[in-house]
C-alpha cells in the first residue's frame, strides 16, 4: 500500500514547534502511528496518557487497533498528539477553586466520576460540570489573588489501582478490618482520608478544605454574587450544563479552563456521614448558597432557621476536632460515658436544683411591675417563694416546664434579660416572664428552662454546653451592637447568614434575636446532625430540586417554563407565574427526541401527549435531566453498589451514544 505523509502536532514540543511528519500507509493502525511519532520525537517519557485528537472531526482516536483507513484519515487531517488528562480549574460548591487533572477524552460522565473519586465524593452520577457564570471583573478585584488549591500532582484516575494498592499496604499494617472497604466499593480511607491526601501537609490542607464547611461569607460577598431574580433567570443557568455523553474537548473546553462542579440531580442517594464527609460538606455548601442567593425561595421563618443552622454549623465546625476516622473504640467510650452520665443523673436527681433570685411577672397582672421572688429549679419544674428563708416550705406556685415554649427577650445593650415562657394549660397558654439580673444568671436559667421544656433535668449532660452556646450568642449580640465586629471566631455578622433581602429589611441587631429564637431548637445538634437537618429542611422546600427551562409548547405562541423535578415535570405560565400543570414520571410512558428540529415529545398514561422545543437550553440538556432522574430512581432497586454507567448513557445519551 502506498505510503503518504501525515503531519501531527505534538503538544509536548511546544506550541511553536512545527508538526512532526511521519510516513504512513492507510492500513497502519493508530497504535502504530503513535509508536512512530514517539520514536521520531526522541523524547523519553511516559506517553501512556497521550492520544491523537482529530481537530476537524472533533474526535479522539482512542481505538488504537483501528486503521487510519477505518477512521477515514487522509493526509489533510490535522492531528494533535497530547495527553488525555489536562489541568482544569474546578469551582467547587463551597466557592473554592481547585486545580486538578481531568480527563478530556472520555464522556463528561466519566470525567466527573474521575474527579469525584479523587475528591472522595460518592455517587458521582448526581454531579456534573457546567460553564460558570461570567463574573463581572472589577478593577478592585484584580489584586485579590485567589488562592488556588492544586491537586494536579495527584496520580491520574488511571492510577487508581496504584492508590488502592498503596492503601492496601498501609491498611494492612494498621488494621485488617479496613480491607472490608474494598468489598463494598466504599472509598478506602487512611486516617479518614483517601490515601492521596495523606502524602503531604499541603494535601491534607486540601482535604480539610473539602471536608470542613467554610465560615459564613461576608455580607458584601453575598451581595456581590449574581442572584437570579426570576424563574427565567433561573432557567438560564441550566443552559450551561455540559453534555454528559461527550468529552470536554468536544465541548470546546480548553486546558486550564474554569468549570463548576455542582450537584445536578436533586436526588441524594444513601448519604452516610461516615463515608460521605466531603459529599455532605459540599452538598451543604451548595444548599447554603442556594438559600443565600435565593435560588430556592423560602419564608422568613425558614430563612431564620437556615441562619441559625449556619451559625451553629460554623461554630461547631470550628470548635469540634474533626472526627476524620471513625473509631470503634471511641464509640465504645462514648457509650460508656453516656451510661455513666445516666447513672450519675439518677443518683443526683435530688441535688439537681439551684437557687437564684429572679423577678417574675405573670403577664395578666400588671404591666409595669416585676415582683421579686426566690426561685428554685428542681427537675423540670420551677417553684417560687416569697424569700430565700421561706424556700424550705411550700412554694407559692410550682410550674412544670415540660412541653412549654421558651423564648428569649434579650437586649444586651440595655441589660434586659427576659425569658418568656409559654406554658400550656387546660385553659390555654400561660405567659410568664422571668427577668434575670445579669448575663450569667440569664444563661443558666435559659439553659435550664430549655432543658426542662424538653423534659430533661439540670443533671443532663447538655446543661453546660447549653449555657455555653447561650453565652456565645449573647456575645454575638454584643459585638454586633458595637458596630465593627472584631474578627474573632465568636463574632459572626448575622447578615452573613441570610439573603441580601433581609440585609435591607433588618439591621444585624434586629436579626440576632430572631435567629436566636430559631437557634434554640438546633443548638444541641452535632455537626453531622446539623448538616443533615439543613439539607432536610432545604429538601422540604416546595421549590426544591426544580430545574427550570424556558420552552415553547407545541401549538403555543408564547414562552413558558418547564420545571424538572426529581419526580415530576411542571408547566409554569409566565404570565400567571404559577404552576398550571403537573406531569409525573410515574405516569410517563415514553419520551421522544427529534434531533433535527430539536423538539421533545413526551407521552403519558391516558393518551396525554406533550411536545415542546427548548429555548434557554439545548434539548439534549432537558433530555438528560429527564433521563437522569429516571436513572436516579432506578438506583434504589439496584442491589450492588456499582454504577450502571451503560444505563445512564442509554437514558441520557444522544444518537451518537447508540
Amino acid at each position: 500500500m502506498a505510503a503518504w505523509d501525515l503531519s501531527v502536532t505534538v503538544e509536548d514540543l511546544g506550541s511553536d514547534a512545527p508538526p512532526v511528519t511521519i510516513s504512513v500507509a492507510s492500513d497502519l493502525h493508530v497504535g502504530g502511528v503513535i509508536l512512530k511519532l514517539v520514536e521520531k520525537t526522541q523524547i523519553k517519557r511516559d506517553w501512556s496518557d497521550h492520544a491523537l485528537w482529530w481537530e476537524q472531526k472533533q474526535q479522539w482516536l482512542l481505538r488504537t487497533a483501528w486503521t487510519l483507513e477505518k477512521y477515514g484519515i487522509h493526509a489533510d487531517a490535522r492531528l494533535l498528539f497530547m495527553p488525555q488528562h489536562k489541568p482544569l480549574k474546578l469551582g467547587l460548591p463551597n466557592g473554592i477553586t481547585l486545580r486538578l487533572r481531568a480527563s478530556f477524552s472520555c464522556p463528561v460522565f466519566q470525567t466527573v466520576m474521575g474527579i469525584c473519586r479523587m475528591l472522595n465524593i460518592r455517587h458521582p452520577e448526581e454531579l456534573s460540570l457546567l460553564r460558570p457564570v461570567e463574573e463581572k471583573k472589577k478593577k478592585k478585584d484584580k489584586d485579590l489573588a485567589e488562592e488556588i488549591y492544586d491537586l494536579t500532582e495527584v496520580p491520574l484516575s488511571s492510577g487508581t489501582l496504584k492508590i488502592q494498592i498503596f492503601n492496601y499496604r498501609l491498611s494492612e499494617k494498621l488494621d485488617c478490618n479496613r480491607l472490608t472497604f474494598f468489598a463494598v466499593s466504599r472509598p478506602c480511607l487512611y486516617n479518614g482520608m483517601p490515601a492521596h491526601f495523606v502524602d503531604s501537609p499541603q494535601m491534607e490542607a486540601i482535604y480539610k478544605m473539602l471536608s470542613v464547611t467554610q465560615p459564613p461569607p461576608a455580607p458584601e460577598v453575598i451581595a456581590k454574587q449574581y442572584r437570579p431574580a426570576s424563574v427565567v433567570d433561573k432557567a438560564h443557568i441550566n443552559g450551561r450544563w455540559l453534555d454528559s455523553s461527550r468529552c470536554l474537548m468536544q465541548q470546546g473546553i480548553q486546558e486550564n479552563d474554569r468549570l463548576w462542579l455542582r450537584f445536578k440531580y436533586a436526588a441524594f442517594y444513601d448519604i452516610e456521614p461516615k463515608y460521605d464527609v466531603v459529599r455532605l460538606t459540599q452538598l451543604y455548601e451548595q444548599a447554603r448558597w442556594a438559600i443565600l442567593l435565593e435560588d430556592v425561595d423560602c419564608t422568613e421563618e425558614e430563612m431564620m432557621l437556615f441562619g441559625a443552622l449556619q451559625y451553629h454549623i460554623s461554630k461547631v465546625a470550628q470548635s469540634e476536632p474533626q472526627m476524620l476516622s471513625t473509631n470503634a473504640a471511641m464509640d465504645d467510650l462514648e457509650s460508656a460515658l453516656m451510661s455513666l452520665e445516666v447513672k450519675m443523673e439518677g443518683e443526683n436527681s435530688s441535688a439537681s436544683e439551684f437557687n437564684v433570685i429572679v423577678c417574675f411577672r405573670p403577664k395578666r397582672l400588671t404591666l409595669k411591675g416585676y415582683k421579686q421572688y426566690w426561685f428554685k429549679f428542681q427537675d423540670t419544674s420551677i417553684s417560687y417563694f416569697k424569700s430565700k428563708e421561706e424556700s424550705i416550705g411550700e412554694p407559692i406556685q410550682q410550674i412544670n416546664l415540660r412541653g412549654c415554649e421558651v423564648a428569649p427577650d434579650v437586649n444586651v445593650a440595655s441589660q434586659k434579660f427576659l425569658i418568656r415562657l409559654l406554658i400550656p394549660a387546660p385553659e390555654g397558654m400561660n405567659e410568664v416572664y422571668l427577668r434575670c439580673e445579669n448575663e450569667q444568671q440569664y444563661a443558666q436559667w435559659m439553659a435550664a428552662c430549655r432543658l426542662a421544656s424538653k423534659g430533661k433535668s439540670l443533671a443532663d449532660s447538655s446543661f453546660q454546653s447549653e449555657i455555653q452556646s447561650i453565652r456565645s450568642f449573647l456575645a454575638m449580640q454584643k459585638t454586633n451592637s458595637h458596630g465593627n465586629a472584631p474578627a474573632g471566631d465568636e463574632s459572626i455578622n448575622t447578615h452573613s447568614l441570610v439573603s441580601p433581602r433581609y440585609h435591607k429589611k433588618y439591621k444585624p441587631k434586629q436579626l440576632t434575636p430572631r435567629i436566636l429564637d430559631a437557634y434554640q431548637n438546633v443548638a444541641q445538634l452535632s455537626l453531622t446532625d446539623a448538616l443533615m437537618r439543613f439539607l432536610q429542611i432545604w429538601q422540604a422546600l416546595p421549590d426544591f430540586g426544580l430545574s427550570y427551562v424556558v420552552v415553547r409548547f407545541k401549538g403555543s405562541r408564547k414562552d413558558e417554563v418547564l420545571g424538572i423535578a426529581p419526580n415530576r415535570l411542571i408547566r409554569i405560565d409566565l404570565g400567571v407565574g404559577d404552576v398550571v400543570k403537573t406531569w409525573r414520571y410515574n405516569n410517563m410512558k415514553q419520551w421522544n427526541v427529534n434531533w433535527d428540529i430539536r423538539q421533545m415529545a413526551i407521552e403519558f398514561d391516558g393518551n396525554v401527549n406533550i411536545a415542546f422545543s427548548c429555548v434557554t437550553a439545548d434539548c439534549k440538556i432537558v433530555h438528560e435531566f429527564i433521563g437522569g432522574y429516571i436513572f436516579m430512581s432506578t438506583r434504589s432497586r439496584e442491589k450492588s453498589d456499582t454504577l450502571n454507567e451503560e444505563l445512564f448513557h442509554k437514558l441520557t445519551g444522544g444518537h451518537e451514544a447508540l
Partner: protein
Amino acid sequence: MDQVSDEEVEVREEEEEEEEDSDKEDQDLDKMFGAWLGELDKLTQSLDDGRPEPPPQQKAPLRQETNMANFSYRFSIYNINEALNQGDNVDLDALMADLCSIEQELSTINTKPNSSSSGLARFLLNCHIQSIRQQINSLPLSLSLLKHSYLDRETSLILRNIAGKPSHLLTKEEQAAKLKAENIRVALEKIKEAQVKKLVIRVHLSDESSKTMMVDERQTVRQVLDSLLEKSHCGYSADWSLVETINELQMERIFEDHENLVENLLNWTRDSQNRLMFTERIEKYALFKNPQNYLLGRKETCEMAERNKEALLEECFGGSSVSVPEMEGVLWLKEDGKKSWKKRYFLLRASGIYYVPKGKAKASRDLVCFLQLDHVNVYLGQDYKSKYKAPTDYCMVLKHPQIQKKSQYIKYLCCDDIRTLQQWINSIRITKYGKQLYTNFQEAMRRSEAAYDWSSLSSSSIKSGSSSSSLPESQSNHSSQSDSGVSEMTSSGHTRSQSVVSSIFSDAWRRGTQGEVRTHKNTQSFPVSSLCSCGLHFPCFPSVNLI
C-alpha cells in the same frame, strides 16, 4: 361471699402457675380476680376484728428505705367514680383484675419473702385493693364513706394529687378507716416515687357500651389497640382507632398508633368530660389506601391501580426525606375571640401553615406564618355551624394538646367541603409525623394480614402490602398479572392492558435495558413503561412515534 370462696380454691392453682411464668399474669384476669377477692376477704376479716394490722416498728424502717420506691407502682384511676355510680353493670371485674395484676407484679419483683419491705408493700396494696372493694360492696349504702375515701374523687386522675392533702383524712372517725388511710398515704408516697405510671381508663365503644382497662404509661396506642382487639373479638382491621373526643370543645382526634396513650390522657383535666372511643374509622388510613387523592394535590377524586399506588407511596415515603403534599387554598379562619369567619389563602409547608397577606402574591418570602406545627395537634371540629356559626360543618382545629377549654390559642379553620378538610388534615399529619405515619400503617396492615391468615386458613389469597380489603376485585386482577405471570403467555405482546403498561417506571427501565431502542428518521424514542411487569412476555418495543 360464698361465691368468692368457691373461686378461691380453684384459683390458688392458677396462682402457682403464675409464679412459674410471670409473663402470663395478664392472661386470665378474671380468675385472678377471684383469687384476690379471697385474699382480700381474709384481710377484711382481720381488719374487722380490730386487730392493729401493721406494727409501727415495721413502718419506720420502710420510710427510710428508698429502694422501696422501685417496688411500688404509681397508678391512677380514671373515672372510677363514674364507674361506681353506674351501679349494676359496672365492669369492676376487669378493674379489679388489673389492680391485682399490679400486686402480682409487686410480688414477683420482691422475690425475697422475708424482706419486710416487700411484705409491707404487699400489705399496703392489699389494703388499697381492699378499700376499693369495700367501696364496691357498700356502694349503695355509704355515700359518706365514698366521699371521704381516697379513691372517690370526682373523675380522679393521679393518686399523688390526693396524697397532697393529708389533713383531709384526719377528719375520719372510724379507727379502722384511719389506719387504712394512713397506710394508703404511705403507699401513695411510695407510688409517687415510682417509675411506672398506670392508668385505669374507660374506653367507649360505638354501641354506647364501655370497657374499663388498665394501661401502662409505656404503652403506645397500637399496643392498646391490639389488646382491645384481642379482648373484644371484633375482627381485625387497620381502621380500628382510639379517638379522643373533647366534648367541651366539640372536637375529636384519632390518636396515631405510635403515640403514647397515657401521655395524651394525662392532658385531660380532672373534671373532664372527654371520652376515649374505640371505633373503626376509615379516615385513619384512607391516605394510604387511596394515596392519589391526598398526595397529588388534585382537587378531584380518582382511581388508581394498586401497583401505582404502591409506587406513589414508595416515592413519597420511601426516600430519605418525606415531602409535604402540595396543599393550598382558601379556608375560613375564625378570628381570635371574634365570632366572624374570614377567608384567607392558606399554604402548607414543612415549616408550618402560612397564609398570603392581603394584597400580596403567593411568593414564599411574603408569606405570613400562621402556625408552626411542632406543638399543636390537628382535631376535627364537630357541628361548628351551630356552635360557632361556621360557614360549613367541615372544620378543623389546631391546638396544643394540653389546652382543654376555650382559649385564644385554639385556631379554627373551616373548609368548603369534606374532601378539602380531609386533605388538609392528612397533609398536616404527614407534615407532623412524616415516615412514622407510613410505618404505622404498614405495621397495622401486617397485623391485619396475620389476623386474616389465622382466621381463614382455607383462603389462599394473600394480600399485598398496601392493598386494602375494600377493593378485592381490582386487586385480584393485578396480583394475577404481576405475581403468577404464567397466564399471560397466550396474549400477544401488543395487546397488553393499560394497567400493566403503567407499571413502576423504574422497574420498567431496568428491563428496558434488555431491549433495544430503535431510531427512525433521527427521532429517538425513550420508552419508559413500555414493558409489562415481566419483560419476557413482551419482547417487542412499542412503535416509535414520529414527530
